[in-house]
């Protein structure tokens, strides 16, 4: 009796809410998949149509995917986004790792102040500065080129990487460097050859997180790029696949789905690092 009561209670208080969370959080992705493979004739049936069959489709089709890949600039957007995200991530990692090292392990004047300043820039949202930045991008004549994004994405990636790496470096014992110094290493050698290799998991977390943030970025890409063949996936899909007031929902959802795949792959390979990145981003 006791056990049955406990089991019933566990279903009510644990499995039921957890199941509801999972369904609610994942349903939109399921919906993307179903819409992508649904033929147009079935797609545009109103909500109160007797044959509205929301959760499956009897005639799956790859028409929308084919249309997306062959008749739009989607492939170009994918390549653009990949290039921009990788370049911005590499720049930000390089800057963030060394800056994080300096702030976490060296003593110098203004250290506290600089650390606070970088933390504050970490909190500056992109939407605060996009209008003056658009002016600057125009003045430097890099508007409508990948460089407009490669140079501006580090403004939110570097503070993040620095912050994450500071936290990571602080967990590495000081003695390791001291040993290397006794063995005759210069200070920078101890940093590069002793500390950086130990910090690889932290660097991975920061890099993965920075990559997904760049892939995700929207407003700078929307404002700084104008020609269709320069756009990134998020901007291309939202602006070029909607012609006037007509939404091509099949190819739109195909674009949303395929455009998410690189991020999903990176994420699936490095879930643990990613979770460390999420939690590290708020812990510091």
């Amino acid at each position, binding site marked *: 009796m006791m056990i049955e009561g406990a089991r019933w209670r566990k279903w009510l208080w*644990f499995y039921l809410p*957890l199941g509801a*969370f999972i369904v*609610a*959080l*994942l349903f*939109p*992705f399921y*919906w*993307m998949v179903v*819409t992508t493979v649904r033929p147009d004739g079935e*797609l545009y049936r*109103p*909500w*109160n149509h007797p044959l509205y069959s*929301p959760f499956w489709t009897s005639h799956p089709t790859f028409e929308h995917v084919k249309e997306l890949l062959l008749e739009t600039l989607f492939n170009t957007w994918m390549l653009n986004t990949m290039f921009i995200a990788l370049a911005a991530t590499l720049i930000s990692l*390089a*800057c963030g790792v*060394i800056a994080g090292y*300096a702030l976490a392990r*060296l003593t*110098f004047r203004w250290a506290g102040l600089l650390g606070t300043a*970088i933390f504050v820039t970490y909190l*500056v*949202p992109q*939407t*605060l500065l*996009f*209008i*003056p930045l658009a002016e*600057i991008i125009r003045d430097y004549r890099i508007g409508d080129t990948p460089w407009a994004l490669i140079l*501006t994405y580090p*403004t939110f990636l*570097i*503070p993040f990487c620095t912050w994450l790496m500071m936290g990571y470096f602080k967990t590495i014992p000081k003695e390791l460097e001291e040993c290397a110094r006794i*063995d*005759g*290493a*210069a*200070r*920078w*050698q101890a940093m590069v050859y002793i500390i950086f290799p130990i910090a690889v998991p932290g660097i991975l977390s920061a890099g993965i997180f920075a990559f997904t943030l760049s*892939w995700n970025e*929207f*407003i700078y890409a929307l404002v700084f790029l104008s020609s269709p063949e320069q756009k990134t996936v*998020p901007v291309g*899909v*939202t602006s070029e696949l909607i012609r006037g007031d007509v939404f091509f*929902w099949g190819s739109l959802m195909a674009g*949303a789905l395929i455009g*998410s795949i690189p*991020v*999903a792959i990176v*994420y699936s390979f490095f*879930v643990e690092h990613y*979770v460390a990145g*999420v939690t590290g981003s*708020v*812990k*510091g």
Partner: protein
Amino acid sequence: MEASKPAPFQFVSRGPISRALEREGTLAFWLLAPTLLILTVFIAYPFVLGVWLSLSNSTVGEPGHFIGLANFYKIFADSIFRTAAYNTFVYTAITTVFKLALGLWLALLLNRHFRGKSWVRAFILLPFIIPTVLSTLAWKWMFDPTFSVFNWLFWKLHIINSRINWLGDPDLAMGSIMIVNVWRGVPFYAISLLAGLQTINPDLHEAAAIDGANRFQRFWYVTWPLLLPVTMVVVLFSVIQTFADFQLVYVLTGGGPANATHLFATYAYQIGIGTGLLSEGAAISLAMFPALLLVVVFQLWYIRKVENR
């Protein structure tokens, strides 16, 4: 000690550069230089330029001249701006409450042991990692007035007879946008709070249970106070992001219907980029600044307080 073993690091040159880099201050300067350069050029300078723009009458391609606070007087008299300001505060407050409550609930559920836990944890983060505009497009499709799956569902459940116009009805549109924001934010709260929960020593719970504390008391007197520092940081981060949100509104409604769902950021975009009134757009963007500053200052103060404890 084996004296014959060669030192692993060999310095051939002890030139002036190497010697200079032995000084911590010099090394720190060079390590921080690239970061400070980028942040100065692309954050500090744009900020100054933004302040200047907001005090001038520049438009696209026209430098303009100083006109004082005229732009700010103009936007404060603008009823759409006031709606946007009101929307932003309501949007931030309501979604934050829901994200925190649901996120904490999910974190508590995930903090228990069950089969497939790591899979569940990996999958529920998807709304957070998938590019926001792309998942928001799926929501726009689900909210479509004619083809909405929610309408079908509520109709089949006999809750509604006529369609719900999720995004087209000015009274409902903001609520629909909030649903999407909560959907996207809950995983971040849950995973961060879960990390916080895992640092709490289970012995404390056991001790409280032995002393006769019930489930709720254990949460309220043991878990919650210990979780508070993490919670505060998560909430402050999320408040800043939500307050400055752009993507959801831009994709779902574009600020419509009849400018009812603008936030600061989307209205700044519409005026500054859409109509080309740079200085007015910059002023609308900067109108976010005092509230953001307040949150940041509070956050810095709070972190310092927790660290010194």
